């Protein structure tokens, strides 16, 4: 199994492509920027009574990043394409133990979010510059992780090391937020009703930090921690955009919880928009996952998560 996983990984590394989807990316570029602004505004206020981060030793967040000189930066945008093969059907989540949560979903009920495909795009891919970044502005603002109807929102979150992560509970029931990193110190905090906020930080880069709720075994989120702000998570349509990247040559890595990682090279020019896209396919389903976050085996047509290994 492990052998197959490694083979898949190298196959993935060789299969990146630069597609011709600049129009769509452009549109998404603007939408994403707007969304980001909205998100920053939404999570401005911290909740009362939050414990200090477990990974405190990174020190206080530096003052807000220096103003970006637009003449030296560009944008990276692209897609996580899902091409060929069957789009996998996700497992239904049995939320019968939490009727209030189950009621928040349509007739089909809640489904797992490990592979979300829409219009040829794959959501929840964490993309980040993995090589070539030298010096980066310190984190500013807080990232937000919410618990809504017994699922994490978002399912995949990117943060900068040292950045505040404000974790809130929109469900009026017990969740515990149990983060199990290996490079950082973790935390495990209970939030027995709506309205509680916990603020946490991770000191050093780590892709990915699994987060789970032990009360509701189906609840799983991933937090990607990097040393700089040049990261994004693909949206529902598979697109992403990273603005204000200093001009230069970089290696970019894409992580997905079922498909592992793949990398590509990207050159950013001042004022330009570089494209970096990643191709995934239905054939990859059923292969072993090399990263260790999830081991998925097949039983007939069902895919069952049997173990989470570190």
């Amino acid at each position, binding site marked *: 199994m492990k052998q197959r996983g490694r083979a898949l990984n190298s196959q993935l590394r060789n299969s990146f492509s630069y597609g011709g989807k600049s129009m769509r990316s452009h549109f998404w570029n603007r939408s994403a920027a707007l969304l980001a602004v909205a998100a920053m505004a939404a999570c401005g206020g911290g909740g009362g009574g939050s*414990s200090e981060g*477990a990974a405190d030793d990174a020190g206080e967040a530096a003052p807000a990043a220096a103003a970006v000189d637009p003449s030296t930066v560009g944008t990276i945008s692209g897609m996580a394409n899902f091409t060929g093969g069957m789009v996998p059907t996700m497992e239904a989540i049995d939320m019968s*133990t939490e009727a209030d949560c189950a009621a928040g979903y349509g007739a089909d009920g809640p489904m797992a979010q490990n592979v979300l495909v829409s219009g040829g795009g794959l959501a929840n891919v964490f993309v980040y510059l993995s090589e070539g970044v030298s010096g980066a502005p310190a984190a500013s603002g807080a990232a937000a992780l919410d618990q809504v109807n017994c699922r994490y929102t978002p399912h995949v979150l990117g943060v900068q090391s040292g950045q505040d992560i404000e974790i809130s509970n929109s469900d009026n029931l*017990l969740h515990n937020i149990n983060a199990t990193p290996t490079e950082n110190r973790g935390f495990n905090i*209970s939030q027995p009703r709506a309205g509680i*906020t916990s603020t946490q930080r991770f000191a050093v880069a780590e892709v990915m930090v699994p987060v789970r709720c032990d009360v509701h075994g189906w609840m799983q989120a991933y937090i990607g921690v990097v040393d700089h702000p040049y990261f994004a998570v693909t949206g529902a349509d598979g697109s992403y955009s990273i603005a204000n990247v200093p001009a230069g040559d970089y290696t970019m890595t894409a992580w997905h919880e079922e498909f592992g990682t793949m990398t590509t090279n990207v050159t950013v020019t001042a004022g330009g928009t570089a494209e970096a896209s990643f191709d995934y396919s239905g054939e990859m389903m059923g292969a072993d996952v090399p990263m260790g976050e999830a081991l998925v085996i097949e039983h007939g047509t069902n895919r069952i998560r049997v173990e989470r290994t570190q």
Partner: protein
Amino acid sequence: MRAPRGTGIVLLALFAAAPHALAGQEDAATAGKVVYDRWCAECHGETGQGDGSAAASMLPRPRDFAQALYQIRTTGSGQIPTDADIRFAIENGLPGTTMPGWPNLTDQEIDDVIVYLKSFSRFFAQGPAPEPLDFGSDPGGGPAAIEAGAAAYLTMLCEECHGLSGRGDGTSAPTLEDWRGLPIRAADLTEAWVFNGGSSVEDMHTRMLTGLDGTPMPSAIDAMNSGVVSPDEVWQLAHYLASFGPREMPPLREVIRVGRAEGGLPADGGEEAWVGVEAFHFPLSGQVVQLPRNFSPTVDGLWVQGLHDGNDVALRVQWNDPSNSPDPNWDEWQNKITAALDLDGAEAIALDSAGAPSVRPPDAVFLQFPFEMPEGTDRPYFLMGDAREPVYLWTWDSETGVGAGRGRGLDSVEPLAEDPVAGEATWEEGRWTLYVRRPIEVESEGLDFVEGTPTPIAFQAWDGSSAEVGKRSSVSTWYYILLEPPASSTVVVTPLLAMLLTGAFGLVLVRRAQDRRRDR
């Protein structure tokens, strides 16, 4: 401003001490390695990753010191522990796990091994542990505090994992995993003596605010700081937890005294008929003598009560088991246990195409006796006898109910269909109550009890949902059961007899006197 006198000397001393202190640490680590390699490495592994040669049979697994995830801390969630925290765990062990306390180690050896343990993880090198949390002070216990604590238990939704009666049978209990993804129990709050971090009110309060890192038990600190519960209510919750049961393991008494029932034997295991009947606690431990062994048994003890009426003997046996096996809700748990444990060659339970176990073993308890009243201290082999000397068994399992059998070893039980033993069991909120009844003397092969003579008795238990089947059981050693003779009758009859005899003698004397008079 002038520096206070002596500052220079202090500084000098500091400079002198620093390299010395470093050298001291190295010496301590070297000395600590000797202690570690001798006592700790077999479970925790040579490199401290919890992967020693004995680790694969253990659940929970030995601590991984490289990750520095310590359950027992006074520091916040996710923080490294203080040296005093590590010392606490070494001195007291982690009851309920395979980690014992180490009274054989000297203070110096413990100090040294702490230095060595910390060297396994880079997290300790990044700086000292933060200060312990501020735990405030206990506003005091008592009935009102316990009542407030009971309310806080529900506010904090503790029952989601620990169950309403605290027996670790909450809705989420079957799905709990530790940080390695291995199955882990919600603590049975009625057995404070197996709490990992100590059983005092202070200990429980500390564990709630720090959480138990590496387990699903979270820190309640944000809930407290947000006002969901007040600091006093967290203390009251600790008092409530302390009220679930005794703090220490109930004292072991060798003999179950089965009194004579006044007004008939109880007809079932219902509470009313057994109120006031003395209950005897017997600890059980995993069967580790024969393969496959069971290092992480579910049933770690049971309570026994007995009554007889001169014709029949009735026993009530109660034990905690969070699962009423077979229960499909525990399928995943059973699969994970099977996958996680080195079953010592036991055949793993196969999964069907949907991932469900092909076999869901029942829960079971056996009561074991010799076939004959033994002479002296001679008793059959405690692990269900052997070919030479079998044992007489009262068997119960959750699928076939109560029966009798002949045991010739752990995997050899032959039913005794003629035996009149009867009974039933009920499961409620994580506890089984088994009622068994049989005539004191039987025509069939089983043992005849003799009032006033202690009879050997031993116990075995299985939790089917934890893949406990066959030799993977909990066992006890031999104890005794004693049917009390009608002691009260001896006390009443003797004076009565004396009175009658005296009366009769008196009558005889009177008659003789009268006769003598008549004869005159």
